[in-house]
């Protein structure tokens, strides 16, 4: 890391800027669909950073689950319901308070990060890419109970979502 700025670092910073700008877009856009589209860009940035961190599997799962499924779900809900214009406060009345709280949180986090001493590896070669098989082994041995619980949770959530979104029989 002593040999100045590497290409990876340049890519990382580009991705970080894209991600952060998109994130700001998500929380400030005046249009919900714009916010959702910004969200996709932010997710793509996160996926790119995963790639830089050599965890391709997580990056691809991120794309697959968030990129297509979640975002489509959101856009779907938006489009099935017609947009209409009406005067509506974009932000709550506690907006300055919220911003202040977020900034305080940020300051605290950055302070903590800077204050901590991290055991940085000496060279980038020391970072071993994590293989898919290792992840699989870990999930199906150490984390098998959480995995099953997540499976149950997913099916419950699926049922719940269907129940919630399906129209009542006595709606009309």
């Amino acid at each position, binding site marked *: 890391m002593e040999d100045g700025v590497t290409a990876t670092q340049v890519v990382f910073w580009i991705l970080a800027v894209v991600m952060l700008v998109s994130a700001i877009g998500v929380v400030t856009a005046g249009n919900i669909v714009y916010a959702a*589209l910004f969200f996709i860009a932010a997710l793509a940035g996160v996926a790119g950073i995963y790639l830089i961190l050599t965890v391709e599997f997580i990056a691809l799962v991120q794309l*697959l689950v968030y990129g297509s499924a979640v975002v489509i*779900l959101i*856009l779907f809900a938006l489009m099935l319901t017609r947009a209409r214009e009406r005067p509506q406060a974009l932000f709550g009345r506690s907006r300055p308070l919220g911003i202040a709280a977020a900034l305080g949180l940020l300051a605290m986090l950055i302070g903590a990060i800077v204050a901590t001493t991290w055991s940085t590896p000496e060279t980038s070669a020391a970072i071993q890419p994590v293989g898919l098989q290792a992840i699989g082994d870990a999930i199906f041995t150490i984390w098998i109970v959480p995995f099953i619980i997540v499976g149950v949770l997913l099916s419950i959530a699926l049922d719940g979502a269907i129940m919630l979104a399906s129209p009542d029989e006595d709606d009309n």
Partner: protein
Amino acid sequence: MVLSEFAGVSMPDWIDALLRVVFIVALMTINAFALIYLERKILARLQARVGPTRTGPIGTLQSIADALKLVTKEDVRPITADRWAFELAPYMAFVPVFLVFVPIPFTETWFIRDLNLGLLYVFGVLGLNIVGVVMAAWGSDNKYALLGGVRAAAQAISYEIPMLLIIVAVVMVAAGRLAVDGDASMAGSINAIVGDQTTTPYILLQPLGFVIFMIGALAELHRPPFDMPIAESEVVGGYFVEYSGMRWGLFFLAEYTALFLMVMLASSIFLGGWNWPFGADVGLGLQIVLTLVKTSVMIVLVIGSRALFPRLRIDQLMAFSWKVLLPFAIVQVIANGIILAYGGADWVVGLVSFALLAALFGLIYQLMRQRKGEGARTVSTTPATPRVITAPDVTPVEAGGD
């Protein structure tokens, strides 16, 4: 390692990368031209017509004429359309398709890069192009486009799931086979899967997988009988109804490239790609010919489905995915897991899959029969006595005579 090996020269990485990009762009363009021409010709054959004949020898330059027309056409944006969503949508639909070319093997050594997670990559990235479709649908400010976009999104989500499950089933089989004489962790790589099919193409091991994959591919590509997002007679073309000129052309290009991609994937995963039946050491030329032959056959099948199938309804489409394909895919995954866990032979896997496939077809046929019921009957009724054919030669009388 495409070009450096082929040309026998070494070159800097960035030139190599650039050349690959150029190669892919050229391939996409030529492929789209060829596919459009082929589609028109094949459809014409199936529909008792002749197709394009006037432009160039037997109409071969028709696609180029079309492309020239598209490029020179005015690029219109509706005044109420959302500017950014409308203008960016074609690129959002196009770029993911372009990116998916990375792990596709044309021969044993011809690919951009062999990814360890190639299959996951393909579906993860390809799924993003639906975002472009949704942007186009919402940004056009057109109700037909919106309906088409909603349909496309629903369809894409629904059919991705059985397809992914089938891929899981295939990877299970591949991992079992690769563990014998290779690295089982490479089972996600498309090239490794192709390399394993020297003697047995996976269509024999996973016939159900092949069928579900092709059905899902038709749905992802918006091809009949799953073309309701772009149905002419219902939503007048769907999400790109407001597009014209080259932006519309980009959607078109993405569509045909995706068709080629899906067919390449299917032929790689299930038909043995460059490998089966000649093996890895027959040389580059024959491998390319093999790939082309397999893809061509599949393309003819896909295009033929357009001529011979009407269109499903959106609820039937969703029901077919969630109630028919998804259970079958899950059963296939579970069956594979059980058989492989207990060390079952390959032929057992194939047999079970064949049985499942037969059950699937039987179910579809049974559903159709049940729905169709009895046909129309003919009744012969006794004719009434004929009315007066010619008017009686009557003398007019005063009206109102009671």
